[in-house]
């Protein structure tokens, strides 16, 4: 399972403050601790705090790279912010571009731009593409799958290997009127999107979104993650400090025969997963 640690995000108050104070230590601690906890990638999102988003992205990337060699997931809806991060990143460690829709009203070619940036970043770069287009976030299964098909086909046209593609079928908060059908829709979409090509693209979700505004957030996150893994989800942006959540990933992967069982399966999961 490719776990993307969500904590280095300007939406969290400690990170927001660290960005404002240029406090490297806070960021570097988060980077190291998330790596130890099993993160394969560290999400890097400048949030809304800084006026200079490009400069802040570069400062975050450089700060993290001083502390560890973990792969980074550059998280922004603005191509110029991602591009700024790519300028200072050591792409040999691996980099994930997060994320692009199929297209936008303001920018029909946005997916092309992201694929182009990923291609230029070298062979260890990957891309998260959302099943979303200029009409917004689809609510049903079929539109999600149709958008994913267009994304996969575009990637193939541009010579971008499907194994470097992460499709995010977009998890919506369950506590929204009439949204309770959405988790099941996402699961069905995962089943179908994985059949679009062989080998299948990676499937990822921003997990915490599902419990937005709800009570028992952690429980909702964990249970949905276990179910989604059984449908073939192989990546997620998560709070890797949630030890029980990582244990659930280890157990789900073991039950799905993705990891060979041993009596110490929980203990070694982090080490094995980082292989």
């Amino acid at each position, binding site marked *: 399972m490719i776990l993307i640690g969500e904590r280095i995000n300007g939406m969290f108050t400690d990170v927001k403050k660290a960005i404002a104070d240029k406090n490297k230590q806070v960021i570097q601690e988060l980077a190291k601790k998330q790596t130890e906890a099993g993160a394969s990638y560290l999400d890097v999102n400048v949030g809304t705090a800084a006026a200079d988003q490009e400069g802040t992205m570069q400062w975050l990337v450089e700060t993290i790279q001083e502390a560890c060699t973990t792969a980074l997931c550059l998280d922004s809806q603005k191509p110029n912010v991602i591009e700024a991060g790519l300028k200072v990143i050591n792409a040999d460690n691996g980099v994930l571009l997060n994320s692009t829709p199929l297209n936008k009203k303001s920018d029909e070619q946005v997916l092309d731009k992201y694929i182009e940036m990923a291609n230029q970043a070298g062979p260890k770069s990957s891309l998260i593409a959302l099943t979303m287009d200029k009409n917004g976030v689809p609510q049903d299964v079929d539109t999600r799958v149709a958008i994913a098909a267009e994304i996969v086909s575009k990637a193939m046209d541009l010579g971008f290997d499907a194994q470097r593609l992460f499709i995010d079928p977009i998890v919506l908060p369950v506590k929204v009127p009439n949204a309770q059908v959405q988790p099941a829709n996402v699961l069905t979409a995962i089943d179908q999107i994985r059949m679009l090509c062989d080998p299948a693209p990676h499937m990822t979700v921003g997990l915490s979104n599902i419990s937005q505004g709800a009570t028992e957030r952690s429980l909702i996150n964990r249970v949905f993650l276990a179910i989604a893994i059984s449908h073939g989800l192989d990546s997620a942006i998560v709070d890797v400090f949630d030890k029980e959540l990582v244990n659930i990933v280890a157990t789900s992967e073991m039950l799905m025969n993705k990891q*060979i069982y*041993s*009596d*110490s399966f929980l*203990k*070694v999961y982090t*080490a*094995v997963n980082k*292989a």
Partner: protein
Amino acid sequence: MAVPEISDGFTGTVNRITLGATKEEGGTRTSTVTIGGARNVVYGGSIEEKSEKPVIAIDVLDSKPEDWPDVLAESYKDVLDSPGDWAKKCVEEFGADLVCIKFDGIHPDKADYDADHAVKVTQEVLKAVGVPLVLWGCGNDEKDNQVMPKVSEAAKGEKCLIGTVTEDNYKALTAIALADGHYLITEAPLDINIAKQVNILASDMGFPLERIITFQSTGALGYGIEYAYSIQERQRLAALGGDKMMAMPAICDVGYESWRAKEAKLVDAPGWGSHVDRGPMWEAATAICLLQAGVDIIRMRHPKAIATVQNFINQIWR
């Protein structure tokens, strides 16, 4: 119909291990052996993804075997009393890549020899041949824990392969193998879950995973080879899938297991063909089958079987 090309890629690699320490590396070996490194299944992928050539370790027993059939004992009849000469014969006449000293004689139910005997045999063989050694206990936990640490010490710095450790008995030998700079054989009873666990246990003691070779237990042709094959295959696929706890090269004990089969040794068996050929064929068939599952070291006994398997290896891994 054309044979389709298998092009499935994998992310993991089997660890590459070099056994034996030459003078420059602080040992006395005149040659080393490198195994592992596979990035695909045996017939899959490109040439670059192939493993190093698998190797043959020929068995030398620490004491004269009492139960070997004549067909097998015949080839070694002059040296069965002298492990040093025996080892020399294996290397010089039969082309052994490695010599495996099997300490059957220390077993309490056999000769019950003590550590001094085992140390003497080890020194004798080290002196007689320059190839790297495999040092294999008798299988009695208590006796192995008494004797094998002394054997390890006697070969300190030679980068031998020593074993075996199991889920229930791993601490003594793991600690001494670590201290003496050897490589370790982790054993499991044809059980992939225990195989992984014993690797984890050794690793928890600080033993580097990169210095472990796994022994999943071996079944000969007609005696469980399908279990042995599928478990070796499962290990290999886990390694190629990136499971670091399963990424070790593997060793099989083909000689001992094949010659236990009645089909290999029964003299009076009309309709089964000559027993002189039957035994070596049994051993060679078992070895070749397991090589195709991705095994890296094969322990063998009969020179004819060894020659057949060497030929097979040279054809496939050229």
